[in-house]
């Protein structure tokens, strides 16, 4: 589904991503972990086609991520999802539905469905300027799962949420996971990742320092947090 082959991204003299290669298979729940500034969001931006790699290739279903075809069956939730303040949640979702090829009654039905999934029924007609962070995040997830995507890209989806908000979003993600989606999660909330993911890649200073299944990584009774701290501090030394 996703292939990054020897990808490097430079911003001036800074190497944000340095020769990163990995693969995410269909139906896999893949988590990319790393401290702030490790290069996780840069990878997400390359997968979205927002920025181009300096070298290497980023493919989604065999199509370069920069091509719009790669985003046909694709959902994306940003860290602190932004919704234009003049739109209501419903209008925002209808726009997403329209942009993903749905129209008329089909769009309405699909929007109603995703509003139910993220438990926003009854609040979807309110202006988004009055939404809390958690509500915006839920609407973001609703937009991402419109039109049954094959790949869901989550960039720090619970960042800035209170414990209840985190639990809500986690429940939504777990429900989605059971529906057989491929999920690419970018997070530094290790306890969340440990509970949900199949495969983990740990990034530090733009490089992948470890990639394996969650069971192999935590095989010796260590928690993911301990493994993560070990790898990152070892690299920093």
């Amino acid at each position, binding site marked *: 589904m996703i292939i990054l082959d020897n990808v490097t991204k430079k911003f001036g003299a800074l190497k944000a991503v340095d020769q990163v290669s990995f693969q995410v298979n269909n139906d896999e729940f893949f988590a990319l972990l790393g401290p702030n500034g490790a290069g996780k969001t840069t990878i997400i931006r390359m997968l979205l086609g927002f920025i181009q790699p300096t070298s290497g290739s980023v493919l989604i279903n065999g199509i370069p991520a920069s091509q719009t075809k790669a985003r046909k069956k694709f959902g994306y939730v940003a860290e602190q999802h932004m919704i234009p*303040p*003049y739109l209501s949640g419903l209008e925002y979702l209808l*726009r997403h539905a329209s*942009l993903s090829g749905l129209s008329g009654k089909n769009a309405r039905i699909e929007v109603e469905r995703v509003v139910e999934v993220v438990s926003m029924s009854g609040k979807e007609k309110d202006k988004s300027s009055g939404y809390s962070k958690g509500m915006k995040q839920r609407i973001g997830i609703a937009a991402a799962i419109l039109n049954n995507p094959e790949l869901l890209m989550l960039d720090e989806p619970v960042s800035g949420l209170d414990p209840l908000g985190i639990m809500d979003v986690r429940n939504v993600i777990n429900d989605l996971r059971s529906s057989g989606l491929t999920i690419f999660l970018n997070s530094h909330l290790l306890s969340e990742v440990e509970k949900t993911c199949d495969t983990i890649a740990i990034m530090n200073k733009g490089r992948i320092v470890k990639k394996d299944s969650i069971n192999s990584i935590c095989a010796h009774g260590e928690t993911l947090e301990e493994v993560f701290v070990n790898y990152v501090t070892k690299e920093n030394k």
Partner: protein
Amino acid sequence: MFIKIILFTIIDQIRVKSFYLLLAISISLLFVMRGCFSADYVINGQHVESLGHVSRIFFQVIVMGMLLMVSMISMKIFSRDQNDGSVHMFLSRPVKRWEYSLGRIAGTWILSSGFMFILHLTIILIIWLHTNEMPVRYLGASIICSVNLLFIIVAVCLFSLFLPDFVSAMLSIGILCIGFVSDGGYKVFSSEILTTLAPSIADSSLAPWRVFYPKLFMVQAYADSIINQSNFMGIGSIHPLVNISMFIALLIMLTLFIFYKKEI
């Protein structure tokens, strides 16, 4: 997708109440000043046909006002989308970058041209109230002047990709002003009175940049000649509409190229 983005742009603009307020105030002002259209003007002791002159002046004032207004609206197109998440909404979907950027530009142009068209229509209405005649040539002239609006929108959008918003708007207005001074000066110096009084000034040749500079003023002069049903005399052999269209095409290509390379 391109059409959808145009529609979203228009819907987003017309949902703002100040849009209707501004339109209502502008129309009301025109009606309040309708007396000017039939006033008795005397210049050098001679009575002047007021309706034609005043309506043409109002027509051009509306265009100038719209040029300033669109420069202010356009400077925020890309930066507002970046700040409120609209750009992520569009580009995380199967929307091509050219569809997004051209859709935003085209939407703004259609809306502002519509706004200007309504104001020009009001002038026609006032003339009709005075004379019972419908001078539809004003509408043709209005469409011609909308090309100038497109030029300013594209210029501001292009500059806003690498300059602060307000600087982009000011730079575009600067281009407009230089063109108006240069071509307006040429028009004055080539007028019948001046060619008679001071033939040496009138005969002086133009610097090449003045011939190829964006002919915003000349487009309006051309629109005026349509209203006035008079002969149009431009600068050089290239028609001002061709000149402006070439500049618009160039600016659009540059905008698309820079936006394509832009990191979101």
